[in-house]
């Protein structure tokens, strides 16, 4: 198994709270890994540490063999923040073209990304005038425009209609099939079945790190919500 992301003993404090305390995990290359857990469990913090914008108190994060956030990685990483981070006073096309230009890509690449997120009909609309779901897809277009080797997506499917959500997941799967490493956070358990691997995280602690099938087998249930619950209880008994 070829490793894309390796997190070892990561400690992150936000304010006085320790969000991640000695967190470790390994994410294989060319896979879709789901990062699942309730709100406030440390998913976003972990993703921020992986893309290198989080101040960390200890531990190491290595991405494609480089320390997270180092200069060579900035051409190879795509990051979708939880709240859409695009310019509301630019159109979808202008936003995507700007992010494309940062990687010296042309507007044809921007158009392809807009197409991939299903916003071709809205390309000349100001982001400020889009719906919440469309905005977050505009933001997604800017994250995938550079065809990054590592794509870190913080809740990309929130607020999307089911058909579109399905298409987005197909797209993530295609990217992974082409060799990209995709890390997707979600708190919707039914999306977990579409991942190659799952990281279940709760209160900064890794509860499971396995394939969806193995997680379900370990918990003895076919329902991932239920599996999550059982695994937490097992953990509590063990501790």
């Amino acid at each position, binding site marked *: 198994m070829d490793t894309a992301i390796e997190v070892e003993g990561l400690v992150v404090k*936000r*304010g006085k709270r320790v969000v991640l305390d000695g967190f470790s995990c390994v994410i294989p290359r060319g896979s879709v890994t789901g990062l699942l857990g309730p709100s406030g469990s440390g998913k976003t913090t972990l993703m*921020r540490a992986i*893309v*290198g*914008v*989080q*101040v*960390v108190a200890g531990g190491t994060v290595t991405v494609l063999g480089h320390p997270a*956030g180092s*200069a060579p990685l*900035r*051409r190879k*990483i*795509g*990051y979708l*923040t939880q*709240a*859409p*981070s*695009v*310019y*509301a*006073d*630019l159109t979808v096309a*202008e936003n995507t073209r*700007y*992010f494309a*230009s*940062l*990687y*010296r890509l042309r507007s044809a690449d921007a158009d392809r990304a807009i197409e991939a997120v299903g916003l071709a009909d809205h390309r000349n609309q*100001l982001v400020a005038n889009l719906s919440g779901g469309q905005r977050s897809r505009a933001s997604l277009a*800017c*994250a995938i425009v*550079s065809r990054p080797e590592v794509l870190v997506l913080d809740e990309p499917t929130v607020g999307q209609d089911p058909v579109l959500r399905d298409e987005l997941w197909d797209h993530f799967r295609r990217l992974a099939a082409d060799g990209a490493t995709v890390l997707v956070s979600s708190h919707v358990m039914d999306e977990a079945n579409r991942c190659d691997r799952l990281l279940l995280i709760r209160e900064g602690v890794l509860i499971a790190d396995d394939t969806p099938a193995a997680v379900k087998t370990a918990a003895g249930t076919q329902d991932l919500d239920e599996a999550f619950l059982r695994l937490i209880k097992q953990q509590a008994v063990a501790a």
Partner: protein
Amino acid sequence: MILASTIRRIITQLRHDPRTIAMIIVVPTLLITLIYFMYEGMPNIFDRIALTMLGIFPFIVMFLITSIAMLRERTTGTLERLFTTPVGKLDLLFGYGVAFGLAAAVQAAVAAGFAYWVLDMHTAGSVSLVILIAVANAVLGVALGLLCSAFARTEFQAVQFMPLVVAPQLLLCGLFVPREEMAGWLQAISNLLPMSYSVEALTEVGANAEPTGIMWRDLTIVVGAIVVALILGAATLRRRTP
């Protein structure tokens, strides 16, 4: 390349906001017209005050616009995302400096053109020097705006920096009381404020047909202040945040 597309992006954002463009272009001209009628029949006083105002407006407007624009980059997450891309801090700082500097040049040209040819303002020196100093002042406003945005968490806080940064410079720049006549300690403070030098430079253009040594020295000091503010601004731009 990244710098060029960043400049283009910022100007495009501005272009999508015609109301702001109108305010940038029209408001200084309206205010100078107001000053004209306040001092009707006193052309010498109008010349002096209008000339000073041509330097001060771009500073105030660009300071405000920049501090809000940069605060938005910080609060909407675009800054965080940009820092995961190949964008450099200098691309951002110079991007804002150049884009808003260009807007300021248009603003200064319109306001100065109106003051000279419609309101009959007179200066011994050339109008192009007046515009040059006005643009330097605007870029100073951009640089200080970038810096101050780091200390504001909300837009409410950001606008509060305007009286803090602008008012003392306006009061002590020599417009209300000549700097030589101020108490020693006020003069000392005035000597530390960059706007004192840009106003002095403008006064030099007003009084002398040819650019003077004092004017060039003052302009150099303003440029120095811009560089210092940009360096401090760069220090507040962190790729990693808590």
